[in-house]
């Protein structure tokens, strides 16, 4: 069949499909039988398959490029509509939080433990070591920064962990902006053979440990610990999880197994990004606690420690026990 005959034969059909594609998505779904295009919704898959066949024919017979390009464009648009996203995933977030997220973290427990070691190792080490040698802190934190922290946790402040002029809502926004950024950095740089995640875990663990150890040693311990107790569980574990997700990407690049490095990376990115959903939610909760609960001085330190410990117990219990029956 020559091109002119082909065009005459199928022009109406092709135009009809294009007219259907030009309808707005809502119109498309509603249409039982569309008067303007003459294409019923139920007939669309068949019409699309025939269009695919026409394109294959046109290409094989080396019809002119304009015709082939037009058919290619229509097939691509049809492909997008037919294989596009389906609706109805509102219930998934709850199911993810109840079962999927803790199960996922348990499935990657080796990585999570390694990340926890990299983060909490230097943190605890410095926390203890600085009780004997507080000056050692100057190897990790500059004097200016140190003075700022001392001011923040001065026992004489009206609120904990913040300068008197700071507003709760603003600090909440600042914590989200800053902490999620740290989390994303820790995650993303893991793709570079895991090096970035390892670096950020060690770095943040070291700095936090140094400041906590120093403030405790110079007698600002009570305001510091009663400030951080509340949000520490959410925030620190979220950093560890971001690091674990990043190391998951790095691990796929270092040891792809039977897959190509690219395919292994794609495989690893799926669970890694799901861990990041959870970590982002935890950062959000932590920022909320840090902005509105942690600075309160109305409660005695023992109450704040108790709340902090309870939250730690809750988070650990969540990751060890939740979703065991429905684990996937």
């Amino acid at each position, binding site marked *: 069949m020559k091109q002119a005959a082909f065009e005459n034969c199928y022009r109406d059909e092709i135009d009809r499909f294009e007219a259907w594609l030009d309808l707005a998505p809502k119109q498309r779904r509603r249409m039982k039988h569309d008067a303007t295009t003459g294409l019923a919704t139920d007939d669309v898959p068949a019409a699309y398959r025939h269009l695919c066949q026409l394109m*294959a024919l046109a290409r094989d017979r080396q019809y002119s490029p304009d*015709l082939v390009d037009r058919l290619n464009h229509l097939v691509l648009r049809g492909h997008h509509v037919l294989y596009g996203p389906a609706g109805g995933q509102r219930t998934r977030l709850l199911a993810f939080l109840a079962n999927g997220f803790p199960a996922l973290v348990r499935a990657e427990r080796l990585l999570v433990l390694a990340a926890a070691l990299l983060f909490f190792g230097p943190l605890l080490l410095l926390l203890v070591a600085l009780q004997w040698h507080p000056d050692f802190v100057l190897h990790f934190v500059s004097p200016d920064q140190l003075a700022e922290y001392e001011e923040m946790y001065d026992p004489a402040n009206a609120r904990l962990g913040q300068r008197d002029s700071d507003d709760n809502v603003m600090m909440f926004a600042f914590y989200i902006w800053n902490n999620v950024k740290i989390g994303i950095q820790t995650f993303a740089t893991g793709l570079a053979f895991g090096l970035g995640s390892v670096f950020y875990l060690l770095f943040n663990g070291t700095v936090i440990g140094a400041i906590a150890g120093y403030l405790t040693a110079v007698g600002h311990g009570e305001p510091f610990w009663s400030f951080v107790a509340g949000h520490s569980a959410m925030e620190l574990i979220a950093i560890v999880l971001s690091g674990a997700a990043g190391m998951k990407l790095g691990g796929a690049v270092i040891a792809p197994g039977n897959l190509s490095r*690219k395919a292994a990376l794609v495989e690893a990115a799926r669970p890694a990004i799901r861990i990041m959903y959870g970590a982002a939610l935890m950062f959000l909760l932590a920022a909320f606690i840090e902005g509105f609960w942690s600075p309160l001085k109305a409660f005695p330190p023992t109450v704040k420690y108790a709340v902090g410990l309870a939250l730690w117990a809750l988070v650990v219990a969540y990751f060890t026990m939740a979703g065991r029956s429905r684990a996937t």
Partner: protein
Amino acid sequence: MLDTARQVATPEGIEITLRLAGPVPRALAYLLDLLIRGAALIALSIAVSALGQFGMAIFLLTAFLLEWLYPVVFEVLASGATPGKRAMGLMVLNDDGTPVRWPASLTRNLLRALDFLPFFYFIGLLAMVINSDFKRLGDLAANTLVVYREHKPLKASIPESAAAVPLVTLSLSEQRTLLDFAERTSRITPERAAELAEIVSPLVGDNTGQAAVRQIVGIANHLAGRG
């Protein structure tokens, strides 16, 4: 035919052609988005400046959302393109040619934090020029492509003329080239068309100038089965 064309097989057993976008249009799209986000933030900072620290909170939250979720929201909800990409005629698709969903879009956009290092997307650019699909690291992990949102191609338009039988036997790809030329005559200058037509001396014989063009268009009409 072109090295930036990528074939994607569909379940219907055919291949669709996608045209990949290189670093330059993507960088321009990014700069446009940067301008849009910057303008939005400046406008916002003026609007909330009277609100003091509460205004500062709104500003910080918006800055955070614009930095990380602006591309994701547009890619998933506005058919694969941020305003900058749309202006440059680009869109983001999965490797199999389907529209991107939340996980893929989040993956590619969170990994910007790495592609951006050590300054202004150096790693991303390096990755893009090394692999054959112009993928930065975020695209590699998310299995996504940035392609040209194709303009509606013109309807096939070989100029009508009396059919002419070619003097030599033509292979399929030669036939296709002649059809392509005939369609393009309306989009290039007559001088350029004549210049190109005269190259094919076995077909146009002693004809020169517009006569050569007419001869080739005649052959194209014959090949397309007209007349």
